[in-house]
């Protein structure tokens, strides 16, 4: 196992921890996008280009976009019903 793979693995571990530790959903969406990119780099280094392509597309376009749209809808619902105690 060479240095590139070891550093990619450690970055992925740090990225995963950052996604969990970040409690605010908006910031977490951005951190999750970065985590997806780190995973894709790891998959490239593990000689898996198909999987890396999938992860790039999903982790940067699919999941963050859906998450941000759902978050925006949530804030709107929250504005619509101000009488419910948050």
């Amino acid at each position, binding site marked *: 196992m060479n240095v590139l793979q070891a550093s990619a693995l450690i970055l992925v571990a740090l990225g995963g921890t950052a996604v969990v530790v970040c409690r605010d959903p908006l910031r977490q969406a951005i951190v999750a996008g970065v985590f997806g990119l780190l995973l894709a780099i790891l998959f490239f280094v593990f000689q898996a*280009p198909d999987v890396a*392509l*999938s992860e790039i*597309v999903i982790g940067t376009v699919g999941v963050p976009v*859906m998450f941000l749209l759902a978050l925006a809808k949530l804030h709107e619902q929250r504005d619509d019903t101000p009488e419910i105690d948050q």
Partner: protein
Amino acid sequence: MSRRGRLALFGVAAAGLGVVLVHGLVGLPAFGDFHGRYGLLLAHVAVPERKATDIVNSITYDYRGVDTMGEEFILFASAIGLVIVLRRMRGEHRDERADERADEDRPGRRHDDLPDDRHAQTSVALRVFGLALVGPVLVLGVYFASQGQLTPGGGFQGGVILAAALVLVYLAGRYHAMARLRPVPVVELAEGLGAAGYAAIGVGGLISGSSFLLNFVPQGAMSNLPSGGTIALLSAVVGLEVAGAFTLVFAEFMDQRLLTGGRR
């Protein structure tokens, strides 16, 4: 159980799980020393048999084609479930808002007359680049979905890239253009055709006298575009289905966001 108690219980359980995991993972072959016979056999046999140079996609659509059919149907079912949940929510919300917005529907109102604050929010750079990139992204998506048997790519990646073009149009602020571009019946038809097409090609194998999902189309020559037989066809069909599913998912989330956001 209180939150503290729950976290303490989780700490104990996670420690136990960690010990079991480490014990199990140590028993695996050392990293880099994998001798899986199935993979070795397929890597030797796939190119002469199927003339497709991308072994991973040969396995996905041919040697393990039934697994992919199951995964495709999971995707199909999730998209349908999401549409059901969100459309019902949207229907309820629309009923609540119908009387409030009745006075907003002036007769002389133009179709793309967005509220002023929405125009001000989207920067010019985002609009220009968003719209300029829609074409190249569509071409990229079609490229990936059609070259699955030759290079890394395939239906799954190409389908999501095609759906991403819709997101670009939304980001560029042209919601009403987007509403014209993706008439929902066409998208739903595309998704259904993709899911049914996979099973239909599988049945073609049955009809040709042998087993389900047999690769019955002529294989062609290696490194040519029409190689791999049904691998290329199944990849294209999966691309259609994934594009339809993700477009539907994005569109449902966007409708949720935009149809009720106009009043601010």
